[in-house]
């Protein structure tokens, strides 16, 4: 049998592993209020907040970050393993397990960001930008009637775009899989006995 490698999967797997590593140090999304008065560094694998010099993490978020690290790392390793052995019988299960992890993380990250933005807009009328800058007025119920206007700046950093690329590569690996297994199947089918024999080992994968 001819040896095949799913290069999309290989690239996607490496990108996913690299993404997990760099995301610990470089956030996907940064929100800054005022001149650094409040700062939030957000990634699926690490999140921290700094409010007037007090840095803190939220345990529940930390747990979700740890889950994301495991989730994405497992996905990256699975798709790497699949990529070098795409013809193995368990390859499709590895692919199915791995390719969706970066995409799923990216979608959940964006959905949660948008949801948080909308919740803040609806509950306290706070207009938090997803990117660029915006001014917003704090509810006077928490400011003793004083009008407090916040200048907020947000931006997606390069790991976010790496996450998109990683998800794209993994998705491409999923589609490319059909192309690299079809010739194998063709070859396998052509070598099978024509009738009356078991075809258990040549099930499409």
């Amino acid at each position, binding site marked *: 049998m001819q040896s095949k490698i799913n290069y999309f999967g290989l690239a996607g797997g490496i990108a996913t592993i690299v993404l997990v590593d760099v995301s610990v140090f470089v956030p996907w999304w940064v929100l800054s209020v005022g001149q*650094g*008065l409040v700062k939030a560094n957000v990634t699926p694998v690490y999140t921290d907040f700094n409010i007037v010099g007090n840095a803190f993490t*939220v*345990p529940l978020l*930390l747990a*979700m970050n740890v889950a994301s690290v*495991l989730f994405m790392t497992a996905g990256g390793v699975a798709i790497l393993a699949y990529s070098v052995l795409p013809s193995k019988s368990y390859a499709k299960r590895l692919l199915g*397990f791995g390719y969706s992890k970066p995409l799923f993380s990216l979608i959940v990250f964006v959905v949660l960001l948008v949801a948080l933005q909308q919740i803040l807009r609806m509950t306290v009328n706070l207009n938090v930008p997803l990117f660029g800058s915006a001014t917003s007025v704090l509810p006077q119920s928490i400011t003793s009637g004083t009008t407090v206007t916040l200048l907020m700046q947000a931006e997606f950093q390069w790991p976010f775009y790496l996450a998109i690329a990683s998800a794209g590569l993994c998705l491409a690996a999923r589609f490319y899989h059909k192309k690299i297994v079809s010739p194998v199947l063709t070859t396998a089918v052509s070598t099978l006995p024509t009738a009356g024999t078991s075809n258990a080992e040549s099930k499409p994968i």
Partner: protein
Amino acid sequence: MNVFGAILAILNVVMILGPVAGVAVIYRDNLQQTVITPQIQDLITASGGNAVNGGSMDLFSGQGFALPQFVSATADVAARSVTLVVNFTNPFNYDLIVNSISADVVCVEHNFNLGYAVLVEPTNLPANQTADFNIACTWTQAAEDHFLTEHTGASSVAAEIVGLTANVNGITIQSDQAYPIGDLPISANIAPPTFVSATPDLAGRSVSIVFDFTNPFNTTLNLDSVSADIVCSQHGFTLGHASLANPVVIPPDATSRFTIICHWTADAEIHFAAQHAGATSIDVDVTGLTVSENGVTVVAPSSYHVPGVPLTG
């Protein structure tokens, strides 16, 4: 194959639920702390809020956050302005930068708009420290008329600021509250220095001239700069430039004495030789006497005549 698929499915569940379950177990006695940690609770408490206990969080009424305190005020009559010194204690573990402050200044007694106040320059307030910053209040002609008609003879007027707008670290704070800023010194009773005596120093070719100056304010003045020109009374020729001999501190509402020294210039020596040959003394005028203290500049409206300054021993 089914076993492998099942293992992967279980792995999926364990990876997602495992850490969350772990945190839930760690904080099982108080699940609220999985989101609102003691650190966040302290932050909310420090800012005066009780949102966690069902109340409303209030960022500006906490004990840790105090409004700026009035320290002193000085007037610059020529510029129609008063510079207020206020201090503020930064309660945060974070340097604050006050970029701008602006407000209207109002006479408390008559609710009359006296002018406006602005921050002199952006000021850094280091974390957990108290720092002073200067606010310049500029009053209008209408305010001067108000002083003359409603506060005749007064040396100060009780004032407050309204419509306060401040920008701290890029956050703009606007308040409709009125903040008392104490008694503002006003220009009505600022008197120019009075001449006392003149003493020549023949060896140093200079003259020392003594003045009295009354501090009309209820705050200590640091007299740190005085300048004047010394002019020949007979010919109007400038003989030299005088400056303060030593810095002087003038207590509130007190009169203190200061000395200025003028060294004759080379041109003055030529003038003496050419125009006052054989004279043993000369009459001079002290002109443009300018006194500066605590940012207050007072220019004497007229010159001071000093007769009989000796030229020879």
